[in-house]
């Protein structure tokens, strides 16, 4: 069973690699992008990692990631020109099928959960299978052919851009931190200040640190690997806390930090500009009471659900 799952997952990763290849080809063809060669190379390297990385030595894979980082560092990666969607097509389809347009999305989420819960294939295979089934349904509903699928795939991958690949790189950073013993050192530093072993104190420390680090960095994903390794595991999970509760509520505690920081520009600063608000911190002020209450509630929830 495990071999089968791994082979199916490998096929999914190769498919994602082909998506990246499409993004590479279309980036190269985008004459309007001054960094089109760099952007194309950026996607090609990800295509190589996902299609063939399995069989390459890991040192080579690591080298490819370093090249990707250099391309990004020297501003050689840009989204470029992405064709606007035709409003008429949208109106025509909505008129014809109405709210059935939501069906593929609902199918995607429900099918993925059903496969995860009721079969032995697990969550990851569920996501892939659900994605393929919903794509077929979406194609039939909207009468789209393979060319449209190609067009929309490369369009979506390119517009999601490097932000889409960031979560995986942050998870990779977590691996490097673990290999370097960052978790133990952080835990040691903090246990010098706070006693280890008190459940409530550990939970509060972890949730508040998640919110605080997220607020400083403006990104809960980046905080998650660092704080969970350094505080979540030694102070809560190692004391008998359920990893699943700690992980789920730890991330949402981080989101409370996102709601409180101007660092999360996309969420808290962009609307100020979009709506020409007078108060630069107007969005954060409206979020403050809810963010603080939810942080407190999640500390209490984690304390009771994890132990």
């Amino acid at each position, binding site marked *: 069973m495990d071999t089968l799952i791994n082979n199916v997952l490998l096929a999914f990763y190769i498919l994602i690699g082909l998506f990246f290849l499409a993004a590479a080809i279309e980036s190269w063809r985008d004459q309007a992008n001054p960094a089109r060669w760099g952007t194309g190379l950026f996607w090609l390297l990800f295509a190589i990692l996902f299609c063939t990385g399995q069989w390459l030595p890991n040192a080579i894979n690591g080298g490819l990631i*370093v090249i990707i980082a250099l391309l990004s560092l020297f501003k050689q990666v840009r989204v470029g020109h992405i064709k606007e969607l035709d409003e008429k097509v949208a109106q025509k389809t909505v008129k014809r099928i109405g709210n059935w347009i939501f069906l593929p999305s609902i199918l995607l989420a429900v099918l993925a959960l059903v496969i995860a819960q009721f079969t032995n294939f697990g969550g990851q295979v569920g996501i892939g299978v659900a994605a393929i089934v919903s794509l077929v349904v979406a194609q039939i509903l909207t009468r789209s052919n393979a060319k449209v699928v190609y067009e929309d795939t490369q369009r979506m991958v390119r517009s999601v851009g490097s932000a889409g690949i960031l979560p995986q790189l*942050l998870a990779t950073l977590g691996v490097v931190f673990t290999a370097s013993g960052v978790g133990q050192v952080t835990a040691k530093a903090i246990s010098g200040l706070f006693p280890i072993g008190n459940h409530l104190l550990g939970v509060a420390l972890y949730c508040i640190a998640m919110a605080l680090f997220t607020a400083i960095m403006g990104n809960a994903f980046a905080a998650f690997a660092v704080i969970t390794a350094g505080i979540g595991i030694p102070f809560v999970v190692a004391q008998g806390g359920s990893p699943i509760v700690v992980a*789920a509520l730890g991330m949402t505690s981080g989101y409370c930090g996102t709601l409180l920081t101007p660092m999360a520009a996309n969420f808290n600063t962009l609307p100020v500009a979009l709506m020409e608000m007078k108060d630069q911190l107007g969005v954060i002020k409206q979020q403050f009471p809810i963010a603080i209450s939810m942080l407190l509630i999640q500390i209490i929830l984690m304390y009771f659900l994890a132990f």
Partner: protein
Amino acid sequence: MEYLSLLGIVVIVVGFALGLDTIAVVVIAALITALVSGIDFTSFLTILGKGFMDNRMVSLFFLTLPTIGILERHGLKQAAVNLIKKMKKLTPGRIFDIYQAIREIAGAFGISLQGHVQFIAPLINPMAQAAGKVNSELTPLEVDQIKGRAAATENFGNFFAQNLFVASSSVLLIASTMKSLGHPVDPAGIVLYTFPVAIISYILCLFYNHAFDQKLMKSKEK
């Protein structure tokens, strides 16, 4: 000297705080952490490459992009706008309640709306402003507060419900990181434990928006 291995954390905190190129910051933080911890460059590349390959599941959400792309082309947004336009003759607070519910349900089904750009600025804020001045004009402060609350509603709906979708990059990142840390968790379990957070935060927002309406009413009576 072991505290030197925390240098990578400093790099990532400062790099993100200064808004430097995120991908470069992450890889540089990894490199510095490894080097100060006595890992040589070749071993670093191997750890980096292996770590990346072991965490490919985080990027599985790319598989859902073709479906979402086709639906967008064929009017996913327009259909959502039609649903929202049905709510008329409401108070600002009620408009926020309904939008947040739609936002959370959409999030649970993996439909990520570009909320601020597509809905809040062009649709929800104007609707709430219109609803707010039914009887009398709003003060400039109230106008600003309605804008702020409209944007806050989008963020609440986004953050407290995004882990309800099993294929979201956040759920996959949690599962993958926990696996690397030696405590594997099931993505479906993460979804399960997000429900209390989503429900409690929504109820809290109902009271919060109700209080907002009350305050607007009071200032009008004066």
